[in-house]
């Protein structure tokens, strides 16, 4: 018997809709999202402009004019598109395994590159070394890319190093590795941000002139490895 995950579909304005598999961070839900995403990439819905995967939801953007001309007379565009998406979801093979890549990401946890590391350690009653150790202890899943081109959302960290976002966003340098709640993430570009910065990777997560544009993609499994300041600078 096929495994099924309950979902619901709702409109996101007049030109998009979202299918939500349950508002929580879980590898199972995220992998269902990615399966649907790949299915829609292979065979897009009529009038589909693009599909955007998130943690546990996927949104389909569509061309309102095209859909309005092609929908059955008795349905609204959303009713028609929602029905087509629902049919796809019913046929989706949740058990099919999408192979995931394992990627090692070097991180320098030197205090000079980690403006919030000592504060986080103090707040969580840990030593700086313990924070670094816990951050590297487990592999993480890339759940989504969003916010900035190539910004990488990873989960989930050990409960002991979880830390809410800072109250005031401050400037963050590209490559910075941060913690927000039990999420950890990598800033692909320099930007204001509210995550607690505990290190920096020398890898270029986003490059507008590179193919592919981003180093990481949803579904990848990341392992952080500590490097020294010298290694960071030589990279």
């Amino acid at each position, binding site marked *: 018997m096929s495994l099924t995950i309950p979902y619901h579909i*709702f*409109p*996101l*304005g*007049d*030109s*998009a809709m*979202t299918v*939500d598999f349950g*508002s*929580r*961070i879980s590898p199972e839900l995220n992998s269902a999202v990615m399966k649907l*995403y790949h299915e829609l990439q292979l065979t897009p819905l009529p009038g589909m*402009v*693009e*599909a*955007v*995967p*998130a*943690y*546990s*939801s*996927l*949104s389909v*953007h569509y061309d*309102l*004019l095209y859909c*309005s001309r092609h929908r059955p007379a008795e349905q*609204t*565009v*959303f009713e028609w598109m929602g029905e087509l998406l629902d049919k796809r979801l019913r046929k989706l093979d949740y058990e099919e395994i999408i192979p995931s890549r394992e990627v090692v990401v070097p991180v320098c946890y030197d205090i000079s590159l980690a403006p919030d590391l000592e504060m986080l350690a103090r707040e969580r009653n840990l030593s700086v070394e313990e924070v670094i150790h816990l951050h590297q202890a487990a592999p993480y899943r890339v759940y*989504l*890319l*969003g*916010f*900035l*081109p*190539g*910004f990488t*959302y990873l989960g989930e960290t050990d409960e002991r190093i979880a830390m809410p976002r800072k109250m005031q966003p401050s400037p963050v340098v590209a490559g910075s590795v941060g913690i927000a709640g039990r999420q950890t993430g990598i800033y*692909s*570009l320099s*930007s204001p941000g509210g995550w607690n910065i505990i290190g920096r990777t020398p890898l270029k997560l*986003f490059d*507008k002139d590179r193919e592919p*544009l*981003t180093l990481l*993609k*949803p579904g990848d499994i990341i392992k952080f490895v500590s490097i020294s300041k010298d290694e960071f600078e030589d990279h």
Partner: protein
Amino acid sequence: MNLRIIKSGVLDTVQDQGRYGWQHIGINASGAMDRFSAELANALVGNDSAQPVLEMHFPAASLFFEQPSLIAICGANFSAVLNGEPVPCYQPILVNKYSILQFERLNQGARAYLAIEGGMNIGKWLNSYSTHLKAGAGGHAGRPLSTDDEIRLNSSVDWQSYLERNEFRVLPWRASDFWEKEPVDEIYILPGREFSGLTELSQLSLTGKTFTLTPQSDRMGYRLLGDPLEMQNREEMISTAVTFGTIQLLPNGQLTILMADHQTTGGYPRIAHVISAHHSRLAQLSPAEKLRFRITDYSMAEVLYRRQQQHLHQIRYACQLKLEWFIHAGH
């Protein structure tokens, strides 16, 4: 031959109808804030809708034409002058070489669009001409235009012979002015996923009260100021998709509307979404201006959008015919 920026404006960028297909890696669509006016400007000079235009904010750039060109300005009215003489919006204008186009006053609207017949010789990034400011890519060198920038023009028509020794010539066809129709401060919305989570009073406030655009309103989004709204329960949401026109409720009870350069994902309650047909209206609002929301339904949103697109289609077709006739008849 080039279009030269002789004095830069506050924020002038090359835009088109948007860059789609890359939101899954965090690259939002960008594109013209007021896609309708951008398309209209292109239609008036006989360009197809995919051509890049200049999106200008006030104070706007001063531009120098090194070759005779056919141009149109749509959207906001910034009192355009050619070599010091006023020229109209929403009408194609033939300009002679060595002409200077300037913008003197902000009369109405927030964003003006300049289209030039034949388009601009600009490379695409990810299949779009739009400037992506965060990524520093697309448009002209991935950034706003600055003094001494030059953009190569693509026209294949020799406009010189049609000028009849005039410095400029306003051609005798005109698109209907967007401002003449309806109250532009009334924005139609569709309830969002978290709308029903608002308290009953807040649901009423959303449509009953007016909201003011704060100075923190730009291409990324508009911050509004109004009676604070409240959710019945404050629940932490995880990041999920948002779109152009999504109205989010911030933790301080104020609303923000996501615009062309919005982030691809958001974690705030999605109270409502502005209908596509009213994005243009929204894009022409400036800080300190007020707006009111009115809830509509999906059928109406669809009808209004179709009407807008049909209007554009008719104008594009009519302008092409007029332009062909003008080029052949000569005068």
